[in-house]
């Protein structure tokens, strides 16, 4: 649950991301791996990732209207955006996060 990103020390992360998963399934592992890689590539230094395991804290599912897992929620910057799935398609994730690719 602790933000794994080392850049979390910064006062304000430009991108505050939350990844909802249900247990340590292969799908959630894949999603987390994909997300980390993508963030390091395109958002180095300006993001913070919070992983929420709904099996442990089911009450959090209602707050962000989570139905599908894994779901990635971009809490900041506004507006809130959601991406569902294992985040395997990098291009669509970037579109979903509204992020300009750092290098093409």
């Amino acid at each position, binding site marked *: 649950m602790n933000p794994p990103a080392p850049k979390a020390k910064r006062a304000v992360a430009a991108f505050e991301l939350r990844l*909802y998963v*249900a247990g340590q399934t292969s*799908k959630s592992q*894949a*999603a987390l791996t994909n997300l980390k890689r993508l963030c390091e590539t395109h958002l180095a230094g300006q993001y913070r990732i919070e992983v929420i395991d*709904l*099996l442990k804290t*089911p*009450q959090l*599912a*209602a707050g962000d*209207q*989570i*139905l*599908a*897992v*894994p*779901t990635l929620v971009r809490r900041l910057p506004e507006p*809130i*955006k*959601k*991406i*569902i*799935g*294992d*985040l*395997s*398609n990098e291009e*669509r*994730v970037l*579109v*979903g996060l509204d992020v300009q690719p750092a290098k093409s």
Partner: protein
Amino acid sequence: MKQKKQPERAAATLPKTPTGITGLDEITLGGVPRGRPTLVCGGAGCGKTMLALEFLVRGARDFGERGVCMMFEESADELTANVRSLGFDLDKLVAQKKILLDHVHIERSEFEETGEYNLDGLFIRLGHAIDTIGAKRVVLDTIEALFAGLPNHAILRAELRRLFRWLKERGVTALITGERGESSVTRYGLEEYVADCVILLDHRVEGQISTRRLRVLKYRGTTHGMNEYPFLINDHGVSVLPITSLRLDHKASAQRISTGIPRLDDMLGGKGVFSGSSVLVSGSPGTGKSSIAAKFVEAACQRGERALLFAYEESAAQIMRNMCSIGIDLQKHVEKGLLRIHSSRPTLQGLEQHLVMMHDAVCGFRPDVVAVDPISNLTFENNESEVKPTLMRLIDFLKKEQITTVFTSLTGGGGATVSPEDSQMGVSSLMDVWLLLRNSELNGERNRTVYVLKARGTHHSNQVREFRLGNRGIELVDVYLGASGVLTGSARIVQEAQESAAATLRTHNHERRLRQLASKRKAVESEIARLKAEADAEEAEVNFVIAQELLQEKAALQNSKTLAALRGGRGENTRLVKKS
């Protein structure tokens, strides 16, 4: 009969959860399958959500089973406001932790989809909600909204299948609502997954009047009512009228009750109608049908019974005012709470829904006597084939409840081509007593007549009576039956006057003839006296003559003796006398 016997057997094999909805539990013979999902589907505005919510609320309130409602379309606030109109206080139940509302909001535009996913989030949410309050009942209100929100239908279908299996494993009784599809039961074929029990709701408009109907399409492992049943959503929630009871096993009371019109009771064997029977009063406009119904109701109230009057022509106030004019005071009874008048427009809703409303009103008020004025207005918009079964349901229901009923029915005006006997579209066969009111027009005036067309199980008069409405109430008068036919009204009065004049005249005539006879007898008697006197006189004359002649003879004999003595010799004298 068949349906009644089976539930016990079925109940032993298939546990059921009562919905608490009036009528639905009767149709399903106990409720929806316990621990299994049930699909409720229908078009927009059919009352799916209301039915599902009532299932939850009644479960929480009446059966001690807590419930979770997961809404995909409405928010908790909207839903709470919506069901408040049904008299359900969701806020309170939520505060008491008897019901948990969870609004699942999904917006297609907020989603981006990449790669594989499943709906574990939904499962977890639902599972968490169920665990939080220990729910036994779950409602998923239009889960089909997910199809609009999630583009990958292949995943969604697989997940829904898993969801329903999961619900079964959790052992909760679930009600899932679904939108009615064009060709299939639901738009997205949910019936494939929820196959245990499917309830169809329908909302049809015929002749500009809409009627809600409910049908149990499928119920695995148990029998159920197969028909379409009209239902109603009112301020007490949903009520279905399960009028399958084509069983004819209602009790028959031997008790008789008065119609409130003594002469009419006389016509019905002197004691009125059987308690719990149905009375049809039919007639053309203005023949006094409503007055009879009102009198009947008043009589019931005067006996201290409860009465319910359904009026489809006049408002309650108007009825009370109008009935005052013939000496029927209904206001008094309304104030005492013995009488309740339900006035509504026949076009307000369909016939079935009127019946559901009546059913509810009767169940709520528990009257001894019900009057419906008139049923013909209810049937106005419907074709006859529909009317009979629906009315039969009502009449059956009322009979089962041992309620005496008066139905009035309007027949065509005087010039109608059908005879009054044929004008009752088969309703009459359901009735025990049928009073026919007619207008007879003669000598420039209309008069009301009444006769008993039929009265099952009672002696009844075959006579036509004149029916008069005055400020003293309703009176029945014998009509004049004479050589010139049936006379009523002033013609009857004239005829009666003529008759009484003729009678007086006859009496006078008799007296005169008696007097004549007496004087004649006197004359004869005096004649007899005269003749007798005459005879006496004659007799006296005759006697006189005889006596005279005897004297003369005697004198002559004396003379001859004397002569003979004078002439000498006795013998000669003797001879002479003898010769002469």
